[in-house]
């Protein structure tokens, strides 16, 4: 599903975010990517959705070599990958409903199929009663769930969540995890970048630990760190 071979990324300002990353993630897996801030977690996500290009190595997503992708093909790649961004990236002037519907509109989904599908995912994230609210009228946890609803509305093969529990109270964080597991059980590959050791240690999944641009560990049912 996702394969990174010898991937390195140095940004134009000289920062070397990733050095030698080798990762293979299979279909329907649930993977934590852990590591301290600045370890390179977000860079990996940006590479997968082709927001940035690697300076070295190759990346395959869904069988496609991202290096061969033309500019016109990028939108089609992104439609197959749902991303819950760390800062949510919701449209501030659009309602909850419009925010989620947007992801369907870009695929030119017929209008009569947009509404039922949006309501379906709003039901999944339990926000059916807030369709008309603007993002700023929602709590952090609610905005997080809107972002998640938008990420899955296109039934993507891969769901990537960047710190989806960051800045949330434990209860909300666990409910978000429940939703992610739910989505994973329906057949979606889930990649979650996090530094929430509590969740990683309690909800055991594969753990890929990144530090200083390298893969430190890659363990099936791993822990956040050896000390934990």
């Amino acid at each position, binding site marked *: 599903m996702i394969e990174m071979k010898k991937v390195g990324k140095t940004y134009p300002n000289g920062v070397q975010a990733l050095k030698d990353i080798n990762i293979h993630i299979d279909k329907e897996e649930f993977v934590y990517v852990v590591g301290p801030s600045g370890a390179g977690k977000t860079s990996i996500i940006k590479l997968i*959705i082709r*927001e940035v290009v690697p300076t070295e190595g190759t990346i395959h997503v869904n069988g496609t070599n991202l290096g061969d992708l033309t500019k*016109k093909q990028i*939108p*089609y*790649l*992104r*439609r197959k990958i749902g*991303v819950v*961004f760390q800062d949510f*990236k*919701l*449209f*501030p*002037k659009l309602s909850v409903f419009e925010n989620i519907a*947007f*992801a369907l*509109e*870009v*695929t*030119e989904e*017929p*209008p009569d199929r947009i509404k039922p599908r949006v309501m379906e995912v709003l039901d999944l994230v339990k926000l059916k009663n807030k369709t008309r609210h603007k993002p700023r009228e929602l709590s952090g946890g609610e905005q997080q769930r809107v972002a998640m609803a*938008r990420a899955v509305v*296109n039934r993507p093969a891969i769901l990537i969540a960047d710190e989806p529990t960051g800045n949330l109270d434990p209860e909300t964080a666990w409910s978000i995890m429940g939703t992610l597991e739910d989505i994973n059980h329906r057949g979606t590959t889930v990649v979650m970048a996090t530094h929430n050791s509590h969740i990683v240690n309690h909800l055991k999944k594969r753990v890929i630990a990144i530090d200083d641009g390298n893969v430190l560990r890659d363990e099936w049912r791993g822990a956040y760190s050896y000390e934990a």
Partner: protein
Amino acid sequence: MKRNTLARHVREGIKNIGRNGWMSFAAISAVTIMLFVVGVFALVILNMNNLVSAVEDDVEIRAFLESDTDAEEQEEVMQDIAAANAVENVSYLDRDEGLDQFIDSLGSEGAVYESIRDENPLNDALVIEASTPEHTEALATAVNDYTAIETVEYGESILTQLFTVTNYLRVIGAALIIGLLFSSIFLISNTIKLTIISRKDEIEIMKLVGAKNSFVRFPFFIEGLLLGVIGALIPVASLMIGYFYLYRFLDVQIPFITMVEPFPLVWQLALILLGISIVVGVWGSQMSVRKFLKV
């Protein structure tokens, strides 16, 4: 593009004007003010040109015939002159008529000359209009060479000065309009740019969610078009109505100032202003969106 998607883009373009209320207001105001200024200047300069042309057209050559020429000779000279390229029109002016005109042109003071009516000092004359006012001088010299012509008059000294002044006026007018047009295009497209730069993040999100460039651009195209149309409404309407009434007013009050007829002028001006405004609106929005599509 599917019809549904096109409808969606148009809807979004319209909604975006409301969603970005103050920025849209700023852009529309910029269009309104600049088009108004450009329109007023265009009308002033057009009329100035018109006035200048009217003065130039009044320039004519009077070629006085020798008193001993007979009708046949006069006719021959007249036809010969009329055949020349540089000549627009030649007419015969009887010496009595010439005196009448002279007396009339002096108004109330002309009465003094009534007494000389019996001993009219003028000769019969040919009144010649040059096809272009600039040809007047050369034409006058050529006409003077006919033996049947005694003297030629065409207001030599005034004419050279007049042409210098009118040419300057035309150049200044054209420069003003072009300069104004460019600065307003710059100002309008900049204001539209600002409304889009403030939405840089939204464009980035659209791209990250999987929107194609054309999908991002189209609503901005509609928005730019609408900003142009809405911004043009007030200046176009007020200039059309204002010019029409000003024309009617001056026609009665100051009849010797001949303004350009309001129709079809105001329609042409309206179309040009609307066209500029739409082109600048669309161009401004598309150029600014383009910068943010590289996500």
